[in-house]
């Protein structure tokens, strides 16, 4: 058993089989990339590409039809992106291992992808053999995700939610509604109409909110709310 998972993981537990190849569906909206991937996998005896797809709809259909062992999926796709494909597969109840192959990914996207079930994440700038290694590792039931980046993303998420909870505790429900409307860019008059109160009442609420949160005005409130993740 290996406890460390990530791009530096060794292949000790990967189990490519000479007799039963790993069946792949590959998705990328760039034809050249798709063709290059097909060529790469054709050179490896333990892989077989059962479908090559250029968009989300083709991918979902191919997954339903072929039931591959591993889906190699680009995040950036026309229309529904790779994360939306993961969500759709979860709704379908599809159970397969997914490797994201992407030109770039930020920490939030990475965390979201992992929470949606992606087991491996590989950057396109990486050497091709790492993609193969990642797929074999993921096929063997392990993860291939950079732990440091994952830790950063978890820290950011938990910190944001903690901050949000603190704001939620400090404000009344009505005040929180007003902050959300400020974040959406509504003016006092619009907020007053939505809440069926006078504009003076909205101003009074805002005054209390500024005091509670220690901000000196609307812009300060907006910045704080965005920073703390109020939506």
């Amino acid at each position, binding site marked *: *058993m290996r*406890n*460390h*998972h990530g791009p530096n993981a060794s292949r000790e537990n990967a189990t490519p089989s000479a007799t039963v190849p790993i069946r792949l569906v590959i998705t990328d909206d760039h034809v050249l990339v798709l063709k290059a991937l097909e060529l790469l996998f054709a050179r490896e005896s333990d892989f077989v590409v059962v479908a090559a797809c250029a968009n989300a709809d083709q991918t979902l259909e191919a997954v339903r039809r072929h039931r591959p062992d591993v889906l190699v999926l680009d995040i950036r796709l026309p229309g529904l992106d790779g994360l939306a494909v*993961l969500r759709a597969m*979860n709704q379908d*109840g599809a159970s397969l291992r997914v490797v994201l192959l992407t030109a770039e990914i930020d920490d939030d996207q990475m965390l979201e992808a*992992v*929470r*949606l*079930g992606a087991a491996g994440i590989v950057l396109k700038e990486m050497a091709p053999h790492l993609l193969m290694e990642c797929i074999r590792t993921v096929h063997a*039931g*392990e*993860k291939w*995700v950079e*732990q*440091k980046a*994952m*830790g*950063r*993303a*978890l*820290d950011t*998420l*938990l*910190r944001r*939610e*903690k901050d949000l*909870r603190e704001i939620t505790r400090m404000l009344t429900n009505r005040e929180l509604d007003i902050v959300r409307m400020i974040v959406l860019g509504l003016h006092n008059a619009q907020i007053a109409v939505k809440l069926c109160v006078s504009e003076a009442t909205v101003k009074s609420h805002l005054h209390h909110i500024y005091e509670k949160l220690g901000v000196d005005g609307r812009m300060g409130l907006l910045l704080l709310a965005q920073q703390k993740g109020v939506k």
Partner: protein
Amino acid sequence: VNPKRVLVVEDDPYVRGACVDVLGGLGYSVVAVDDGALALQEISRFQPDLILLDLIMPRAQLDGIGLLSRLATAPASGVPVIILSAFGDALAQGVSPEVTDGLRIEAILPKPVSLHTLAREVNRLVRAGVKS
């Protein structure tokens, strides 16, 4: 003597079943759910002495990360938690203690989890008096 209560939150049916079998065999009262939303209900109803929590549950309404965040401020905060996850290293090394100060994360067990290790950690925490 009332058995100690363990709540297992795990979406993999095999791991969930194994946890129930092993901990039940050790004399614990075990409830297992596959969603953090159900876990919140069980925390109120079952009042566990210990929670075993998987972090990544893609099909759950509330996954383990979401539940962890809720536990940091929920009334049940203070219930010790054992994390079962391949991303235990990320949680242990990447997350600042101040972010998790409302939680009692007592152990992080990387997946695949050895049932022997799991039983040992649960017994250790119970012997240490997870909830008197």
